[in-house]
């Protein structure tokens, strides 16, 4: 059994909710010992966010918490208690990374800002993930993922020109931009520390990270004065390009045709209908000039078929096409995800099971995987305080009585 690549790395993890916990998940699944630090005053409220994130019977945690926190440990530490603060500092002194995603200044106010932490461990790597960055008139602003993507301009650019823009799907800062940029930053800092012995302070502004997903929109505005806006499902590079209705309730297929070759493939899949042979559809420019009619005709064809059949027949002709899958499709009907064991079933102590995705990259020599259920409340108190921090049995009992572990 190959060793996990991040074994030996310990993270004192103050992240909660989505964006930050998603980042430490990546390292936890690859072997890092990620210790979630929670208290009664500040639990990770994703745990019990019923009904928005339902709790499956027999698990004790919400589905959202399950997805974001596999392979991690969890402890309770009352940071308002002097012994609690002392213990958390002792834990940080034997950790490699300290992570949080609270609003700007929260860690400083708790006495755990970078200046304090670097005294405990000179090569500590600290990552903060506030909404806005430190400095500037709005640095204290709070906002959740959806609001951040709206502020970054993503809603304005998604949807149809004659309607208000919509969100870019899921809560993108939480499931994409923040976690993978944060993991990149933490891992790069670890590499740098391996090379030089130095730690560092990383600040990731969720708003600024979201803006970095805008592609060419900023340059197009600053250079050409153009405000990129909504184009529905159309691409400037080819037609037909969009999402087309298929048979059944809320069933659709996405199709992307760019080249003449792909256009011919689409025509073959459709059985070379009369209309497709009209000269106006023969060229890429022609297809774009007549895109309204073209899409209407394509959708007439797709509407009479299942999304699966459209996908299959187009892929057979070398055309990019795919069923617009939903959650059930992903879990039950997707042969590709099955073949690569994308979903891992995690079993909980009470007997319940939940599925979690194993992420998108497979390392050939040292693969990682969600290997343990998301931790229950205070599940690892004994392990962390007795084995890592060497509290004696008596000290542990005394602190417990004093409310240090709550």
């Amino acid at each position, binding site marked *: 059994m190959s060793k996990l690549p991040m074994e030996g790395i310990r993270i004192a993890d103050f992240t909660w909710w989505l964006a930050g916990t998603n980042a430490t998940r990546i390292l936890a699944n690859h072997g890092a010992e990620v210790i979630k630090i929670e208290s009664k005053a500040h639990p990770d409220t994703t745990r019990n966010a019923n009904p928005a994130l339902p709790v499956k019977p027999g698990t004790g945690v919400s*589905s959202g918490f399950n997805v974001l926190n596999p392979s991690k440990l969890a402890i309770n530490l009352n940071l308002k208690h002097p012994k609690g603060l002392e213990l958390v500092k002792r834990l940080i002194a034997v950790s490699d990374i300290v992570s949080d995603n609270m609003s700007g200044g929260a860690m400083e106010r708790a006495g755990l800002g970078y200046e304090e932490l670097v005294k405990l461990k000179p090569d500590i790597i600290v990552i903060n993930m506030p909404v806005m960055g430190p400095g500037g008139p709005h*640095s204290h602003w709070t906002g959740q993922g959806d609001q951040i993507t709206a502020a970054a301009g993503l809603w304005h650019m998604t*949807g149809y020109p004659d309607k208000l823009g919509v969100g870019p799907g899921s809560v993108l800062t939480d499931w994409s931009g923040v976690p993978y940029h*944060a993991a990149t930053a933490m891992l790069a800092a670890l590499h740098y520390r391996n090379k030089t012995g130095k730690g560092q302070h990383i*600040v990731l502004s969720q708003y600024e990270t979201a803006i970095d997903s805008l592609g*060419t929109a900023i340059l197009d505005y600053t250079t050409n004065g153009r405000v990129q806006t909504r184009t529905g499902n159309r691409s400037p590079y080819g037609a037909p390009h969009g999402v087309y209705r298929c048979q059944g309730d809320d069933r659709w297929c*996405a199709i992307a045709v760019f080249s003449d070759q792909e256009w011919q493939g689409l025509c073959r899949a459709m059985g070379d209908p009369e209309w497709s042979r009209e000269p106006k559809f023969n060229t890429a420019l022609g297809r774009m000039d007549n895109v309204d009619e073209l899409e209407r005709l394509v959708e007439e064809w797709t509407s009479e078929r299942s999304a699966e059949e459209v996908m299959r027949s187009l892929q057979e002709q070398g055309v990019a096409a795919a069923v617009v899958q939903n959650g059930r499709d992903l879990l039950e009907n997707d042969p590709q995800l099955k073949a690569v064991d994308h979903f891992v079933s995690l079993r909980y102590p009470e007997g319940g099971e939940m599925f979690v995705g194993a992420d998108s990259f497979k390392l*050939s020599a040292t693969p990682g995987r969600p290997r343990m259920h998301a931790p229950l409340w205070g599940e690892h108190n004994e392990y962390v305080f007795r084995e890592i921090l060497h509290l004696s049995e008596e000290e542990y009992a005394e602190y417990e009585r004093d409310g240090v572990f709550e």
Partner: protein
Amino acid sequence: MTNTDSSEGVLEGIRVLDLAGPMGVYCGKLWADMGADVIKVEPPAGDPMRSLGPFYKDEVHPEKSLYFFHYNTSKRSITLNLNTADGRELFKKLVKDTDILLETFPPGYMNDLGLGYTQLKEINPRLIMTSITPFGQTGPYREYKSSDLVGQALSGWTNTVGNVGERPTWPAVELGYHHVSISASAGTLIALYHRDMAGEGQHVDVSMHEAGAMVAASTVQSWDVRQEITSRRQATPNRGGWGIFQCKDGYVYSVTRDGPPINFLFKWLNEDGIEHDFWDPRWQDPAAVDDQGVAFRSQPENIEHMNSILRPWFMTYTMLELAERGQDHHLSFIPYNNIKDVVDDPQLEARNFFVDIEHPLMKDTPRDGGAPFNFSETPWRIRRRPPLIGEHNLEIYAGELGYTVEQLALLKAAGAI
């Protein structure tokens, strides 16, 4: 460039050969701006991405593609044709001193050229090869075609975009490619950490399909736990004051939490002479439910009642007026921006977020977005402007690999570089 600091980057000393197309080109940029020596390997006539717009001042020209510009900051460029024997020889020489090879060719393409991971690791056992493909290196969909939209669709992502009952929608900024790029970055740097500790490289197999499925994770949970298919979200809110509201110069996204935040809103309304009954404690009491268990504040008629009072009030203020005053009192109003609002944002200006990047063929210096994160010891910065086609052929082939000018001329004429 506005930053003349010459401090080293966090990935200083790491050499990357970047053969990536749209699925991976942001990953290369991310690392290059972090200090890695990223060499963009282009076909002799230039990378196909140089044909993608928008263009500088709409001048369609391979050195003026803003697409290429955005994604290739801080990189050097060489030209190389892997379909020639000479090209492949050159490539193997480069691989000897390469730490990370980033590519997005279809599965099997590099193998067929004799340049797959098993072959390259013989030349350089410390090589980390990262391959980004639509579906991964194995599986029944391995040969399937994809695109940003098509990839998002199959991965469950597209189904969540748009309003309930309407057509699933595609965000027009190639977020699928962006997402798999940053996923690849995380996976590769885990391999780099492992190499630091154990000395060996490895192959990192990245699938855009699996990456997208991670974005759609909550829809899988809904099915797993509740047998519910969550689809495009409601345009209607589930409590008053929560959601997107039109205001004087645009829209704000308002999130009204109980306690001090929403109390401040109610006070503000009073200040402005707006009559309301929102001080009734039921508005903030989650236990005030009807016989169906629906909280008072979430009952449709009450949502509409509150919003009918709020809507005209929002129209009397601009986005920034609402956000700045609200946020000073923990009331989460956030402006719903377009790209102009983003570029003009005083917060980003105060943070020096934007960077000016000079280019010999662009008289008006382009300004682009800046750091996705900040490091204290190794500041993020654009190290050089995006390269011209093969700009560093001499520097790398002659300067580093020792080829003579005559040899390079022969290779150029032969179509190898």
